[in-house]
Structures are given as structure tokens and as C-alpha cells.
């Protein structure tokens, strides 16, 4: 029988090596550039930080040689190591220190007396080593002679090496180690409370017919518009020692776990609400009809239909909240008192003790829960997507007066809590001298005489937010387009995808610290951006890359996969298609990305705390610094400036989107 397939005996047909088109080459170039951006802005800094956490400083006693003259001539040179061995003075772990460690030279002479007439000679052998006489640094390899009275002022400096010693030190420091427990405790507790409250709120929004749903939705979104530390300031005014209603806490201090948890619930609430509302909104009305026809009680229906239907949403919300809380830095700094948490530890190690290596170690420790929460969340979200069937029928709640009233009062309570905290902040900002002079004044807005950078920090923030929104949207959307719409480059694209997902798992402080290590390295030619607005923009764009990227990818996925094929068959370059079709069609998502980046750039503290310079002080950091300096009312005032700015930005976004939707209504209305 004839076969149309050529006989297998023939030699194999020649392999084809596809010729790349101009488009292919341009796209390859574009992927390369954007991929390079992520490598430079994310992968390399993180790598540098990781290696820094393994950089240790040790007193290398072999490097130092001593001679003694007790009036009867100089003794033979003997190394610090030999002395230490023979007299067993210091144990090996006592020689481990940090890069700014110091060790007194007199340690090696137990019989040392500064009044004696003994003379000492000392030299160090390492070209990079040094010792100090008082504060004078000696870095040569010559012998130096000192009388006893001067010798007592000599301290040795450590040399650099690498190993896991920093981690050993970390885990053997109880105060640092306890931060892990504290961070986990606070994060888990907050997660339980927030997810519970948000579930109730979302349930009321989707399953009742209570009035003012729109208003409640709006109120619930307010925390997104303010820095996470702002609720902390409001809590001080409410429950501090001079607080308006401090009695409510029965003498418990607000500074500490209570304050952190209340504030964390405030700022994580909208994030949880969005996820859970989505999960509840997609549940299938047919299941409820089935439950009714089976005469299941509402209670049973709730547990057998509602909860299982929303379970992925609940799990996802839990991990998102957990991640937000454990990586947040601003709130525990403001209201945490002496209650240490991991993110604050990084700050204390770096800023307070200048112990960069230990900061890097804490960062790595903080990465572990953050990364695992993120990974589980991604896994769960994939499952949830699969759960939605295209045939499900949306649930339409029926009116039930009693239930609706309960929902209304519950939501009103939550809304009052959220909006109340904001109002308290505004009130506090206008009081002249709480609690002694309650006259209203604008004195607290005179930021120029306060720590933190003054009004220019506010303008800097707006500049940062605009630049972040502009460049971020450009980079993110173009990057997402390349990942979604190019053919080939499979490895590059999956590597890019991986890098694009990573920022969500990286706490802002960790990213910021990594940036110091990477960009402030003298050999890095990109070091010129250190201390400028550019590094803040790069850092902020990178920090908020993932959500923006996912938004862009979702929008692009809804585009017909064959547009590019059609365009190339019509011999039109991809950028024409991109400009004339892709961008206009995705415009609503592009606007969403820019407002997301804008708002977050206005409120972010953790990612930029290590990176700002005087020229680039930011409003959100000014809030923290002013609170730090005890100027709490001005801090509240600046926080409110951020809030109003974000509200205005949101309104502009709303207006532009509405207008866009209206003018493009003709082709956006879906047919069929």
C-alpha cells in the first residue's frame, strides 16, 4: 500500500535553522535589555547581599608580632597566635567579630601595667591589615615601638574572610533569635484576625443586600493609600499614655505587640479583602440552589458551600497578609516599643550598630518565611484559577432584613475603625501641642524646621512616584509583552518570568540593603546612581515589579494570540502592532499599573530607607524620621499629605479611566 510518508530508509532531511527576522532581532534585543535590568536591579544585588552575609571578620593573630623590652633588651619576636596558644587567653570563638571589631593589644600581656617602664614593639604583617594607636591607624608592616602608657591604647583590627560564623553568632544571640519568634507570633496573630475580619466584610459585601456597599468598599481601601506606619501614629494618640481613650486597654501599653497587631490589621485589611471578595464573588449560584433544594440549613450551606468555595481565596489572603506583616518595618518601628521584630532588627543592625554583615544575616533569615509564604500562595492561586468554571452562574443575594442589618452594622464598625484612625491623624496634625494646647494651628505643617527633609521631601516623593509610575509602567508592560508574545528564547523567557515573580517575595528592607552592597561598591560603574533619585526609582520599580507584571500579563493574555502572526503575515513590524493595537487595548491595565506604582512609591518606607540622600529625602521616610525625633504631630501631618496626594492621584486615575472607557466604548463592549 502506498504511503505518503517518505520511506524511513532515506537519509534524514536537512535540519532547518530558522532565519531570524528584523522583528525577532529587535525583540531579542528588547528581552535582553529588560532581562538585564532585572539582573542588575534584583539578582546581582541579592547575590551580593547573600555573599556579604557570609563575610566574616576574624582577628588573625598570626598577623601580629610582638617584642618586649623590660629594660634588659628586646625579647625574640613572637606572634599573637603563639602567645595566645601558650597562655590560652582567647577561645577561637572570641576571635570572631564584625568588620568594625577591635581587640586590645594588652590582652596578650596579662601582667601588663601602664605605669611600668616596659617597652613594647609591634608590627603587623598583612598588607591589608592594620592596628590603631588610640584613633590613629597604622597600616604599614614596620616595627613600631611604644612605652607601656601608649601601648595600652593599641587595638588590633580584624581581617576579612568568609564562612557561616555570622549565622552562628546570630543564632546564639538570644535577643536577635527571639525576634524570629516575635515576628512569627505577630504575623500569625494578625493573619488570623485580618483574614477573619476581612472574610466577614467580604461576606457582607457579596452575600447581603445591605445599603452603602460602595461606601464601605471605598472605606476599606483607604489603608492602601497611607504608609503602614501611619496607623501607629494614630494609635499613639488614641491609646498612648496621653491617649484619648487609653482606658480601653486597661493599662496595657499600646507600645508593643498590641499596637503592632492593631496597626497591622489596619494596613493589611484591604489586601485580604480584595482577595477574599474575589473568591466569594466567583462562587457558583447553582451550588446554593442545590443546597436549598436539599433543604440544607444556612449554617450547613455556609460550611459545605461557602467556605470550600472560598478556601483558596482564604489561604491566599492568609499568606499575603502574613508576608506583608512579617516584612513590614515602619509600623513596629513606630509603635513596637522594645518589641523586636526581624525587619526592625535589620534596621537596628545596619543603622544603629553599623553591622552590615549581621544586617545581611537577618535579611537572609527574613527571606525564609517570606519566600515560603510567597511560594505557597502562588501554588494556591494556580489552583484557584483552575477552580473557576466558565459555566458557573454568579450568585445574586436575596434581601433579608435582619441579616442585612447585621451586615450593615458589622461593616459600619470596621469602616469606622479604618476611617477613624485616619481622622485621628488629621486631627492630631492640626493640634498645636497635644495635650497641653488644643488650639488648632498649621504649625505642624512647617516641615522645613523639622527633621526628615522638610517640604522638599514631599515634592521628592511626588517626583519619585511620577517617575516610578512612568518608567515602571514602561519597563513592566514592555517586559511582560516580550515574555508573552515572543517566540523562542524559551530559557531566557522562563528566567525572566522567574525574576519577575521574585520581588514579591523579597522584603523591601532586604532589597534596600542589597542595593547598598551592590551599588555602593567602588568597583561598580553603576555606583554613580547611588544617592540619586535614579536608584530610588529603580529600587521602587523593582520592589513592586511582580504585581505590576502579573497585571500586565493578565491583560496581554486576553489579547488574541494570533495578532503577531497576522501582523507579520501582513509584513508589519511588531512595534506598529504594539503601538496601534496592544497598547490601546491594554490601556486600562496600563493605567492600573501606573496608579499602583504611584501609590506604592508614595507610601513605601522599607525599600528606600537605606537609599535616600538629602537631595532625595522622601515624605514617607520623613514621617518615620519625624516620629523618630518625637515630632509625632508633624509626622501625622506629613502622613496625611501622602494620603491626600494618593486620593487625588486615584481620582485622576478614575477620571482618566472613565473617560477612556467612554471614548472606547464602541469597541470595548463585548459581543456574543
Amino acid at each position, binding site marked *: 500500500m502506498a504511503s505518503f510518508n517518505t520511506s524511513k530508509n532515506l537519509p534524514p532531511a536537512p535540519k532547518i535553522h530558522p532565519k531570524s527576522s528584523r522583528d525577532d532581532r529587535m525583540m531579542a534585543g528588547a528581552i535582553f535589555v529588560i532581562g538585564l535590568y532585572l539582573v542588575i536591579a534584583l539578582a546581582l544585588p541579592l547575590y551580593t547581599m547573600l555573599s556579604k552575609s557570609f563575610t566574616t571578620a576574624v582577628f588573625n593573630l598570626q598577623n601580629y608580632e610582638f617584642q618586649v623590652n623590660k629594660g634588659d633588651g628586646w625579647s625574640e619576636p613572637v606572634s599573637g597566635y603563639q602567645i595566645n596558644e601558650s597562655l590560652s587567653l582567647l577561645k577561637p570563638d572570641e576571635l570572631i567579630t564584625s568588620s568594625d571589631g577591635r581587640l586590645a593589644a594588652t590582652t596578650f600581656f596579662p601582667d601588663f601595667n601602664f605605669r611600668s617602664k616596659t617597652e613594647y614593639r609591634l608590627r603587623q604583617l598583612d598588607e591589608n591589615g592594620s592596628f590603631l594607636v588610640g*584613633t590613629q591607624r597604622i597600616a604599614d608592616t614596620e616595627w613600631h615601638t611604644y612605652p607601656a602608657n601608649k601601648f595600652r591604647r593599641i587595638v588590633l583590627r580584624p581581617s576579612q574572610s568568609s564562612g557561616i560564623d555570622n549565622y552562628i553568632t546570630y543564632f546564639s544571640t538570644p535577643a536577635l533569635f527571639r525576634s524570629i519568634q516575635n515576628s512569627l507570633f505577630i504575623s500569625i496573630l494578625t493573619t488570623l484576625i485580618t483574614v477573619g475580619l476581612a472574610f466577614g466584610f467580604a461576606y457582607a459585601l457579596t452575600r447581603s443586600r445591605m445599603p452603602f456597599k460602595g461606601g464601605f468598599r471605598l472605606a476599606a481601601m483607604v489603608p492602601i493609600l497611607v504608609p503602614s506606619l501611619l496607623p501607629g501614629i494614630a494609635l499613639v494618640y488614641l491609646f498612648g499614655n496621653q491617649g484619648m481613650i487609653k482606658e480601653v486597654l486597661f493599662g496595657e501599653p499600646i507600645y508593643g505587640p498590641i499596637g503592632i497587631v492593631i496597626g497591622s490589621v489596619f494596613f493589611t485589611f484591604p489586601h485580604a479583602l480584595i482577595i477574599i471578595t474575589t473568591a466569594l464573588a466567583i462562587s457558583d449560584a447553582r451550588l446554593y440552589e442545590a443546597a436549598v433544594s436539599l433543604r440544607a440549613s444556612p449554617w450547613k450551606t455556609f460550611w459545605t458551600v461557602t467556605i470550600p468555595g472560598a478556601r483558596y481565596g482564604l489561604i491566599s489572603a492568609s499568606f499575603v497578609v502574613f508576608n506583608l506583616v512579617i516584612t513590614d518595618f515602619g509600623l513596629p518601628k513606630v509603635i513596637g516599643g*522594645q518589641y523586636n521584630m526581624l525587619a526592625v532588627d535589620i534596621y537596628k543592625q545596619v*543603622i544603629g550598630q*553599623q553591622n552590615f554583615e549581621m544586617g545581611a544575616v537577618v535579611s537572609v533569615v527574613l527571606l525564609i518565611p517570606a519566600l515560603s509564604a510567597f511560594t505557597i500562595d502562588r501554588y494556591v492561586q494556580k489552583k484557584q484559577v483552575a477552580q473557576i468554571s466558565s459555566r458557573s452562574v454568579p450568585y445574586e443575594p436575596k434581601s433579608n432584613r435582619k441579616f442585612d442589618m447585621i451586615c450593615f452594622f458589622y461593616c459600619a464598625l470596621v469602616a469606622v475603625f479604618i476611617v477613624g484612625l485616619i481622622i485621628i491623624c488629621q486631627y492630631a496634625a492640626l493640634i498645636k501641642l497635644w495635650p497641653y494646647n488644643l488650639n488648632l494651628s498649621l504649625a505642624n505643617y512647617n516641615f522645613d524646621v523639622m527633621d526628615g527633609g522638610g517640604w522638599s521631601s514631599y515634592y521628592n516623593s511626588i517626583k519619585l512616584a511620577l517617575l516610578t509610575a512612568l518608567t515602571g509602567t514602561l519597563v513592566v508592560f514592555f517586559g511582560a509583552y516580550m515574555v508573552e508574545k515572543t517566540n523562542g528564547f524559551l530559557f531566557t523567557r522562563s528566567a525572566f518570568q522567574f525574576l519577575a515573580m521574585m520581588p514579591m517575595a523579597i522584603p523591601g528592607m532586604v532589597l534596600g540593603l542589597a542595593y547598598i552592597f551592590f551599588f555602593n561598591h567602588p568597583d561598580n560603574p553603576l555606583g554613580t546612581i547611588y544617592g540619586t533619585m*535614579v536608584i530610588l526609582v529603580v529600587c521602587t520599580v523593582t520592589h513592586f515589579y511582580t504585581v505590576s507584571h502579573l497585571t500586565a500579563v493578565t491583560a496581554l493574555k486576553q489579547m488574541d494570540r494570533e495578532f503577531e502572526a497576522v501582523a507579520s503575515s501582513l509584513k508589519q513590524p511588531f512595534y506598529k502592532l504594539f503601538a496601534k493595537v496592544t497598547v490601546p487595548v491594554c490601556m486600562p491595565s496600563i493605567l492600573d499599573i501606573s496608579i499602583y506604582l504611584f501609590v506604592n512609591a508614595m507610601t513605601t518606607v522599607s525599600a528606600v530607607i537605606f537609599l535616600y540622600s538629602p537631595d532625595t529625602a522622601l515624605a514617607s521616610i520623613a514621617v518615620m524620621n519625624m516620629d*523618630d525625633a518625637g515630632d509625632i504631630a508633624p509626622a501625622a501631618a506629613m502622613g496625611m499629605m501622602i494620603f491626600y496626594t494618593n486620593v487625588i492621584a486615584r481620582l485622576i486615575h478614575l477620571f482618566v479611566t472613565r473617560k477612556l472607557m467612554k471614548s472606547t466604548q464602541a469597541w470595548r463592549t463585548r459581543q456574543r
Partner: protein
Amino acid sequence: MGIKILKNLNIAVCAVFLSMVGFSNFAGAATDLTVYTAVEAEDLKKYAETFNQDHPDINIKWVRDSTGIVTAKLLAEKNNPQADIVWGLAATSLLLLKSEGMLEPYKPKGLENLDDKFYDQDPTPSWVGMDAWVAAVCFNTVEGKAKNLTAPGSWKDLTKPMYKGHVIMPNPNSSGTGFLDVSSWLQMFGEKGGWEYMDALHNNIARYTHSGSKPCKLAAAGEIPIGVSFAFRGARSKEAGAPIEIIVPQEGVGWDMEASAIIAGTEKLEAAKTLMDWSITRKANEMYNSAYAVVGYKGIAKPVKHFPPTLLSKMIKNDFAFAANNRKRILAEWQKRYDSKSEPKN
């Protein structure tokens, strides 16, 4: 048309990028001098203006933060310094920088006018002092009365059970003021006595703040009645109308010096030297004197409003080298002992 849009977009992006990069390197007719400082924010404008009266061609770009942060920043930038000069940072911090080889020794003109406590004793000094900044206790009289607290007279008084939870002080790990308190106690009471004192004091501390001025501001706001802070901050708050009294503990008070130094490797050495010269002039010292009772220039200090008269006589003999070289050890010990305040006790 598509290409055109893209081209324009490219140009726009490049322009934005270049302008952002350019922003950092912008150099106008005047010399821009990047000055790191921990001087109180409200004074910076006055300092720059007064300086510019004499040297209008040098434009000061301030980098202002609290002592710990500025120090950390300078150390972090050790290999790639961003600052040209430091004007107004704790001497302890400058000693630290000196030992890292980060300071450019320079003998400013008119050094002989300064009290010799106020400059580095090397032949060519690496740093020169401006003024001294003295610890003090801020006591809120209104809250004190409400809580039946008598005003403390000494450091030891603060350990009395009466003050439990009513005292607040800065964390020495982040605050220069906090560190000078701790190092002064260790110098005054001895290593053993100092830690014993802090153990006792710790029981009364409500919490440790990150910044040195916050305790006094919190005392001024009545949040915590007693704040261990520094005299200048107390005077300011009192001036603003807060019901506080500035107390100088009778054992003596720690102090640190605000000092200036040129950062080694600066490209603007001449301008930096000009500022160094000016920073020890009589005019500059009179300017410092508006806030600080003790200044480096011999014989010009005038009393400052609201400053307690006993303050100067109670300043201890401070060993800066001790403070600088033992800083790490002291901070580590402090953290081990007290940094877990308000931990749940199991």
C-alpha cells in the same frame, strides 16, 4: 507613525533618564559641597545662611540625619564616599571614622583660638570641635504632679521605684545621645558600677527610643514624664511652651562634642578647607552659642536661655578614645542586657 511614536517615546525616556542621572552630577557656577551633619534640622538653614554671608560661592548641600544614621551612612560609604565634609557630628563618631582612615587631616586657620579640648591632638588635626552637647533630664511638671512624682535630682534617683515606667531614654545603639549617657555612666561609676546602675535603671524604663531628642519631646508631650535627653532639646521644648524642667543630675553629665572633619578623597578639597576655616571663626561659634552653652572658641560663650546654670560645671571629663574604641563592646553588652525589654516573661 508607529515608529515615530516609539522614537519620540525613546527620546523622552532617554531624556528623563539623563536628567535623573544629570541631577546627581549637576555642577553650577558655585561649588556644591555635600555636607553630612547631625545638627538639629531647624538650625541647618541658619548655619548655611550665615556661612554664605561670607562665602556666597559655596553652596551647601545638607545630608541631615541622627548621629547613628549619619555615622552608619559614612561607614557604609567608606569605599565610595559621598560626603565632602562633615559639619556637626559627634566627636565619638569622627574618631571612629578617623580610625578607618576616612578623614583628611587639616589644620584650619585660627585653630589657636579654640580650647584644646576641642580639637584632635595630632600635629595636623583630623577633626575640630564646634560645641559641646550635654546630657540632661527633661521632667514634665504637670504629669509629675498628676502622678505624685518628685523631680529627680541625680542619676541614682531615677532608679527609685517611684519612677517605674515613667522614665524614657534613647537606645544607645541608634542614638548618639543614648551612647553618651551610657559611656558617661561607665566612666563615672566604673565598668561594674555602670552596668549595675543601668540594670537598676532598666527596671524603671518605659522603653528605649531610636532618637535622642524623642525622650525630651515625649516628656514635653506628657507621654512619659521623665525623658533622658540633652539640654539643648529641653530648652527648645520649654521655649515652645511645654511644662518641663531641665534637670542636671548631680553626679555629672555626659557630653559629646559636635565636630567637623574633611572626608579623605573629596574632589572639593579647597571648598572643604574654606568651610573648615570658617567653622571655627568667632562668627560661627557665636552662632553655635545660640543653642549650645559650651563652644570651642575661648571666652565667648554666653549663657543660653532655659539652660540650668549648673550644667557646665557638671560636665564630666570625657575620654573620647575610650568611647570610640569600646563602642562596639559596650553596645553589644547593652543589647545583650536590655534590648529585649517588654518581652513576655515565661
